């Protein structure tokens, strides 16, 4: 179920990132949906699967951005950061891991680091004139916007999860052995 969900999210993220008409773009700043999916995988799994999903998202993002730049830049960056996050989060308590503020900061850091570094590396490898300040500025705004969207998504999922157990709480009509013994 989780794999299907992640696969669907990744597909839609790829479509949304490359579509010509992007109504979600604000002041020319577009969110990085694929990196958000990678971030979701990091939070969803505590083991190697998070790294694998992050790598796939990074590779797809590499394929969609840049026509002549080499592949694998975002893949490597996303994998490295995912390992660091896993190492850090494993030491935290479960309550702290679910903190909205922490999730927001992690998301900002993830999107910002991958986005800015990959742009700078691509520019350097392609010998293109690159304005580092504006790249960093754009990446920062993009990461903030992406993280805000991610937090909205996380909150929505948590809200849905709180409703889900209610439907499962059905009153059992069968008498248990314990009750039979008591009566």
């Amino acid at each position, binding site marked *: 179920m989780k794999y299907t969900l992640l696969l669907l999210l990744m*597909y*839609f993220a*790829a*479509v*949304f990132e*490359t*579509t010509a*008409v992007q109504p979600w773009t604000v002041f020319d700043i577009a969110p990085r949906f694929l990196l958000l999916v990678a971030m979701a995988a990091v939070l969803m799994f505590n*083991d*190697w699967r*998070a*790294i*694998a999903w*992050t*790598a796939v998202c*990074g*590779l*797809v993002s*590499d*394929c*969609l951005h840049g*026509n002549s730049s*080499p*592949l*694998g*830049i975002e*893949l*490597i960056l996303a*994998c*490295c950061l*995912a*390992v660091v996050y*896993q*190492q850090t989060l*494993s030491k935290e308590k479960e309550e702290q891991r679910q903190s909205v503020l922490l999730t927001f900061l992690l998301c900002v850091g993830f999107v910002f680091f991958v986005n800015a570094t990959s742009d700078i590396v691509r520019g350097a490898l392609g010998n293109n004139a690159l304005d580092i300040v504006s790249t960093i500025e754009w990446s920062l705004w993009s990461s903030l916007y992406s993280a805000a969207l991610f937090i909205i998504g996380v909150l929505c999922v948590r809200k849905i999860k709180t409703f889900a157990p209610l439907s499962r709480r059905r009153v059992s009509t069968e008498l248990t052995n314990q009750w039979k013994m008591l009566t």
Partner: protein
Amino acid sequence: MNKSLKTAGICVAVGVVLSVSPSWLTETLRSAVRDSIRPGHASLVFVQESAKSWLQRLGFADPSDLKLTNLEAELDEWKLRYRRLQSELIAQQSRLKQLEKSASNPWPTAEKFDPLVISRLAECRVLGHDLAKNWRQGKLLNHGLDEGLAESDLVLKSSDTLIDQSEHIQLAAGDPVYAGRTVVGEISQVGQWTSTIRPVTDANYVAFVQIVHQANGDSAVSAHGFLEGTGEELCRIKDVQATEYVHIGDPVYSAKQDSLTPQPMFYGTVERAKLDENSLTWDIWVRPALQPDELATVTVLRRELNPLRMSAQ
């Protein structure tokens, strides 16, 4: 955790291999990923279009669409204005040429006399399809032949567009028919009550025309030729030399200018132009600007003897 590190190591290695892999491999991978998300793009566009049409149906028109409609209307208006100015420019150019020729006249300015033939415009209503059908079937005029009210057989048998004026205002076959500054055709049959219009697309229609070329905001006559109707929706221009410049979209104007029609009148625009190998002339097809049955009224240019001259005799 070890497994995570191992996976990360493998992924990083894959990334490094990909970054140094040959371009054909990276291009193949890129193409595969981009092709796979194409159906998603198509679905997204479909969803966007559907949402837009639903919003329009509910009365929430997109302001950009409204703006586009207004801009299109404005563009049409400017096009009309441009065509009128272009027509005037050509007239002024030909007048200038005429003046240059007559500038060296050594005699004092001649006294002006009334012209023998004058032109007058007559506004006529176009009979719609149903009205024309009833008229041809005699449903509108059934007083009988004895009273001399019958319409001419030539008019009744013709399938051309009918107008409600005829010989009583001295219309004659061959009189040009206009709608504003656009040529619609010519009068083909004149009856007792009505007349028929031969459209420019009629196979028997011929006119001398000029093709005007626009470049860098300037207009100049690029070629002359004979416009002929083909019986279909497009007209054809013949006898345009292969050495002339002809472009698709060039406007076509009447070339026969005299004292009665001082300004060139618009026919339409060049739709297709073909120059076969070893051919000496162009094959040009023109889309007429107007068809008679699209109009409610037309104007007919009549030529008649000047009554002042007649009375002076």
